[in-house]
């Protein structure tokens, strides 16, 4: 049979093939976790909405809208061949920098950080999207110079990451800065960083953090939070800084094996843990759903990590591997830091729990990241 093909048919075939290979588990996981997130936001915002005189569903509705936008964004990202995104990395990176810089001028401060754009009733946090953008950029750059990551090129890669980190840090968002550092580091390590460079980079990172603390570039509340975590300060001396940490641990411990029951945990119900519907959402899971619920959520996250790790191995090109690793690192460090701080094994930073914490920008950015990973997975044979 004569084969008469044209470009359009080829693309259709390609996308049909791609849809056939979509990772359904990875598609379902964010949706499931987001649904739980909406429930827990409802649970944890009881006292907050009552005190502020807001509607009981105020946060749930807004988060619901963000989840829907996120799902659409995820599907859109998945339809564009990731290799086109790969080739556009310099453009993506170039667009991110002014977006980040702008917030320093026009932004709105909250919780010690100045990292939000106020768009009418909506707020937009560019650093959340910047995390994903930087992972694309570093992965794209390393893909271009595959197997040839000499010191000079390494320096360029570090400069790419360093610029984003510096601006985010200038927004007093230490947590996101560290997340970006971990993501960039993970991508570079997989990209073939030489062992000697790894050692030098670790030393450099330690020196930078040390210098920042010594020269007073780290905000006092950030230091206090860390001292509190390290047990250097007594509770009475540093009440405010340790308050969150103690109350978070308290709420989780109160949950026990099976939890107090949804909506029945007295600490959650009475707003005992500050910022509970945002950064401390895991304490609501811990108190109301107990170890059963908390462990289930951690298992869902572990499943998510496994799918991302698997994509890194299955990817048809090096960029796909690096992208999946960067996204994997991003989720893992956020989950570990966020859940860890609620349980008192990590210091407190303002990092949201992916798909769970209230916060539209983070939700949308997380869905975009999953969209990229799905993209790599479904095109692994093309």
């Amino acid at each position, binding site marked *: 049979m004569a084969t008469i093909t044209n470009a359009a048919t080829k693309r259709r075939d390609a996308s049909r093939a791609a849809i056939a290979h979509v990772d359904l588990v990875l598609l379902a996981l964010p949706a499931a976790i987001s649904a739980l997130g909406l429930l827990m936001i409802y649970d944890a915002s009881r*006292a907050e909405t*009552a*005190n*502020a*005189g807001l509607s*009981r569903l105020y946060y749930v509705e807004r988060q619901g809208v963000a989840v829907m936008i996120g799902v659409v964004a995820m599907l859109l990202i998945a339809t564009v061949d990731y290799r086109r995104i790969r080739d556009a990395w310099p453009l993506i990176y170039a667009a991110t920098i002014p977006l980040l810089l702008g917030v320093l001028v026009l932004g709105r401060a909250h919780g010690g950080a100045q990292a939000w754009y106020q768009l009418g009733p909506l707020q937009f946090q560019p650093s959340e999207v910047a995390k994903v953008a930087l992972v694309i950029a570093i992965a794209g750059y390393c893909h271009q110079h595959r*197997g040839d990551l000499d010191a000079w090129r390494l320096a360029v890669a570090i400069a790419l990451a360093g610029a984003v980190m510096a601006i985010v840090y200038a927004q007093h968002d230490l947590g996101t800065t560290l997340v970006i550092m971990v993501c960039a580091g*993970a991508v570079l*390590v*997989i*990209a*073939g960083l030489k062992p000697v460079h790894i050692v030098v980079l670790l030393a450099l990172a330690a020196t930078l953090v040390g210098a920042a603390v010594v020269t007073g570039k780290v905000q006092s509340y950030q230091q206090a939070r860390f001292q509190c975590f390290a047990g250097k300060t007594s509770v009475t001396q540093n009440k405010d800084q340790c308050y969150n940490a*103690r*109350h978070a*641990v*308290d709420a*989780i*411990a*109160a*949950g*026990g*094996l099976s939890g107090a029951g949804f909506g029945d945990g*007295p*600490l959650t119900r*009475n*707003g*005992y843990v500050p910022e509970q519907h945002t950064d401390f959402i895991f304490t609501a899971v*811990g108190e109301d759903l*107990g*170890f059963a619920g*908390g*462990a289930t959520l*951690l298992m869902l*996250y*572990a499943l998510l*990590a496994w799918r991302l*790790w698997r994509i*890194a*191995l299955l*990817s048809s090109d*090096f960029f796909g*591997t690096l992208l999946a*690793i960067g996204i*994997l*690192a991003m989720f*893992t460090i956020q*989950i*570990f830091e966020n*859940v*860890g701080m609620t*349980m008192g*094994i990590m210091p407190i930073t303002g990092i949201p729990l992916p798909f769970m914490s209230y916060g539209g920008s983070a939700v949308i950015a997380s869905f975009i990241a999953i969209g990229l990973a799905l993209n790599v997975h479904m095109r692994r044979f093309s």
Partner: protein
Amino acid sequence: MSDNSRVRVSIVGVVIVALFASLLARLWFLQVGPDRTQDKLSLLTERTIQTASPRGEIVDRNGVVLVQDRLSWAVSVDRDLGPKTRVRVLGQLSELLGRPYKDLLTAYQSKAQSPLLPAVVAHDITVDQQIAIEERATDFPGVHVIGLTVRSYPAADKFHDAGLAAQVLGYIGSIPADQLNRYEKKGYQPGDTVGLDGVEAAYESVLHGRPERITVNVDPRGLQVGAPVKVVPGSVGQTVRLTLDARVQVAAERALDNGIQAARKMPVSATEPLPLKATEGAVVVLDAQDGSVVAMANYPSYPLKWWVGGISETDYSFLNSPLANAPLLNRASSGLFAPGSSFKLVTALAMTKYNMRGAYFPFPDTGSVTIGNRVFKDDDGTAHGNFDLQRAITVSSDVYFYTIGNSFWQAWNLTKQAIPGLGLQAEARELGFGAPTGFDLSESPGRIPDPTWKQQFSNLINKDPAAKLANGQWYPGDEVNLAVGQGDVAVTPLQLANAYACFANDGTLLTPHVGMGIENPVTKASKAITPPPRGHVQFDDQVTRPLMEQGFKGVVSDPSGTAYNAFLGVNVPVAGKTGTAQVNGKAPTSVFAAYFPADSPKYVVVAMVAQGGHGAQTAAPIVRQVIQAIENPGAVAG
């Protein structure tokens, strides 16, 4: 992918597994494992919450309920509201309940309420208001409608007498800050309700139920965590039965009120046309045989229900204002009055006991007598003639008793011996004056002046040694004044009633009491309150006492008796004595003390009205009304 990269991706996988494993482990230890208790202990503290315990009832001698707990629907507001919400919620409540915002806020912030429980901001809300709050729950975050037990006064409603025995029953309230220590030693907690006055205070230990105590774990915000650690069940308070007879009490209060209102329409005297002020008064009805208080009325009074659910600021400041003239005070046992001629009971008994004058000696009363350099006149100047003791009492001859006072003073001046010189004081103390009677509510000891007291008082008010000495002298006038119940002598209506009871029952000095028995409302077990008599007084039953009895009867029944007119038409034989006690710069205190039936005395009735004029003018008609009410109980509607 190169092998190198593959190895590195695998290493990343291992790192991630380790991270998740450590989170899971930490979660396990925190929620299920050994760390759990440790974390709880570091943050949770135990606290004990006491539930309200039903307080015992107070009933009268016939079982009429005077005070009991009733259910009141109240509004409580959670303590963890944010400032904005609190303002909004209290504002909306103020609108709905029609109560001032300030009152609600004051109640919300009151330190007297337990910090562990929602603050009760309003009591006794209507059914409509209840429904409105419950239906609009979203408009009232943290607001609850709760059932509380509060005091209620059924007899006051039944007899339409809002102030029924208010000063006797007393009131309850949160433990005052300065008494917290004392109560805490007995197991009370801040915010507990206790009796603060009257029977509620005197019988607190039996009225107060043992509260149910629930020990719970609370977090640093005071919120309960988990199930209660320990529950100690409570018990209900016991019923206190009083010796009061509600009907007689109501009659006494009405008689006192009528008497005072009537006095306020009478001129002070023939030369002073302004009406009597009749500022305050009290009535005591005492059982002459066992010392039980059948009625105890006070003027001015006030409605006890003002205290229910916490007194309002307006009511409280009124009760304490000079305008209200201390309506909280139980004047019947704590008010001090000059007894006037009713004190001649003491003088007459002392006269024969210490041989100052024979009971039959015909003493000439010329209307006035000069003692020292002072002229003492008969009160109305009409009692002229030769009087024996009986007649002197009936017509209330002041000169007869002035001269007795003078005789005592002469004896004291010559011998400086207490006996017989201060025989008047000795007799007064024997009859229970000048010292607490042993009454189960608070009382004043009163004062029987003597040379020692006068010197001490002078030392107290004078600085100059010469003045101390001069003003501390015991002059004839002091003893003369005492002989007719004036000057520095001060008695409570209860003391006066108890002294007359002692005379009426021929010598038993009783312990007056208002508590009759304690009854357990569940087991019905009861225990009578029967305080033993305080002592026995030996009277001269041959001459003096019979003569005095005749004298007291004559006061009421002899046309020349001082209270003859006041008692015209009373069928029961009454014996009594008027008193018109001169008070410096004020109209006299009107006093009447009586016992009846005169031949087998059952009750003593005493009425005292400050600035009430003559004894026969105000106090005697009050006593008459009370006696008629006791004789004719159907007359008191209820």
